[in-house]
């Protein structure tokens, strides 16, 4: 199971998930297998998307990868998650702490549940920076990552509180915090879903620019096929807890293999073609 066999041609993956399964409690003595036998890889510098509809298990998968599943005997994680070869399934709380504080930066859909409402933006970004800088130098560094995240007026923002910012700016503060630790991987779960379209586009541009400049890997989770198409090199399609298809963005969009993917694309495209009725996927649960 070690990675000796792929020594020459392929670089070692940053994230190597093999046969991951997650069982979650849904009620008294009731359980659901939210993730079934999922295998995926993220290579250094690569942008990978997981696309799926609600209930597909995409968020649970990335929660497992970032160690954010609730710690409970009722939550069962099987299989293997390796971060640079280091096994994370069953890792101690301290190991996870190390991974999350230094190696993985995270961006979520709702920035207000992540930001501390009583702390200034500047302080929250500085907290994420590696320690050991003087006050002045850490303020400079905070402003640099904020500018990298597309916050052009960083100097005006550092003294402000989250409630004083618009949704798009808050999301950029999250990007700045994620970048501040110089992580090897950024995990973004529906980063622009709650934003208005014009703002969404600019925030995606900021994210695109910053991961390109830093060479950070990106694992992006979204239900929005356009967002994945625009940002990712490689795409996994999830449906009912399983990965049904994977490939380059071009393969998935121009030449989908699985019926679910074909149906989903047909449904999305029916919004912009000149058909009378919208196409409803055969797989729709409603």
């Amino acid at each position, binding site marked *: 199971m070690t990675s000796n066999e792929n020594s020459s041609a392929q670089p070692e993956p940053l994230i190597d998930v093999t046969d991951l399964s997650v069982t979650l409690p849904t009620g008294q003595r009731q359980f659901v297998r939210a993730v079934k036998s999922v295998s995926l890889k993220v290579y250094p510098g690569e942008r990978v998307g997981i696309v799926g*509809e*609600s209930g597909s298990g995409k968020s649970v998968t990335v929660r497992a990868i970032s160690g954010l599943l609730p710690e409970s005997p009722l939550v069962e994680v099987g299989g293997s998650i390796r971060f640079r070869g280091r096994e994370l399934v069953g890792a101690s709380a301290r190991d996870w702490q190390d991974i999350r504080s230094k190696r993985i930066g995270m961006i979520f859909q709702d920035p207000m549940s992540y930001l501390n409402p009583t702390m200034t933006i500047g302080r929250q970004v500085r907290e994420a920076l590696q320690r050991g800088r003087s006050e002045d130098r850490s303020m400079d560094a905070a402003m640099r990552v904020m500018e990298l995240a*597309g*916050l*052009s*007026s960083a100097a*005006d*923002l550092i003294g402000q509180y989250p409630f*004083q*910012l*618009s*949704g*798009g*700016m808050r999301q*950029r503060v999250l990007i700045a915090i994620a970048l501040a630790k110089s992580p090897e991987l950024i995990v973004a779960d529906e980063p622009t879903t709650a934003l*208005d*379209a*014009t*703002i*969404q*586009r*600019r925030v*995606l*541009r*900021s994210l*695109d*620019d910053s991961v390109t400049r830093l060479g950070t890997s990106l694992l992006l989770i979204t*239900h*929005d*096929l*356009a*967002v994945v*198409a*625009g*940002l990712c090199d490689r795409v996994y399609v999830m449906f009912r807890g399983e990965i049904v298809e994977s490939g380059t*963005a*071009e393969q998935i*969009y*121009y030449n989908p293999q699985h019926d679910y993917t074909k*149906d*989903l*694309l047909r*449904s*999305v*495209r*029916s*919004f*912009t073609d000149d058909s009378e*009725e*919208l*196409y*409803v*996927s055969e*797989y*729709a*649960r*409603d």
Partner: protein
Amino acid sequence: MHAKLVATGVSKTFHRKRMPGAAPTAKAVDGVTISVAPGDFTAIVGESGSGKSTMARIMLGLIEPDHDGGTVTYDGIPLSEMNRAQSMKFRSSVQCVLQDPSAALNPRKSVRQVLAEVVKLHGIATTKADIEAKVHEALSIVDLTPTATYADRYPHQLSGGQRQRVLIARAVILNPAIIIADEAVSALDVSVKASILNLLGRLRRELNIGYLFITHDLPVVQKVADYVYVMKNGQVVEEAAKDELFANPKTTYTRELLAAAPLPDPKLARDWIRSTTPQTEAIGTALVD
């Protein structure tokens, strides 16, 4: 088609609690004129803070415009001058479907109870058998079949799309002329969104229902709307028939909105992201939006 629900020069000012550095009042809607006719798909598009939801609430009669802030009329009668019978008629003829169906449904009531309550309240049927018949009729109109199964369910036993169908059933059961839908499909997955929009289209054809459809989702508007109002900062900045608006947008803001609609194609989507400026909104406008 003759406009039934008309807002003329409507303004609404909200008074805020005193907050350092913030203006004491906010004009959410400023001189807006909008009309909706049965059988028409009228859309209001705009981003957060544009006043589109305030407009929806005003046209539903849930909040009143400012004292000198214009009027809303239904069948030519101002809402503020309606007698009890007229008001009751208005409240059954203009219905709403909102974004979050779980917030609009009482978790302790079954679908049957939710629908029967509305029927009783508006005196549409009185005997138990008639009420039950109405409930089943409404459920079958929105394709929640077999109706007997769905009538017994509680909100938590339904998917998001099914809950939205229950809300549509609750509106349709009153035989409305107009449904005001505020981001009614925004939170749904794409194929569920498609099936709900197809349902709304069918109800329009079969029952001649008119919609005031409020959304920030431009692909949806492009697909279903007949006439579009674009709102920004409380005002209508542009209005036109849908095809005209998409082919020939007159204001910079509308052009920006149209360009912001994402495309599910790798090449186009990459260009779409990379052709914008990464800069933040200016800090002044950020505090308002």
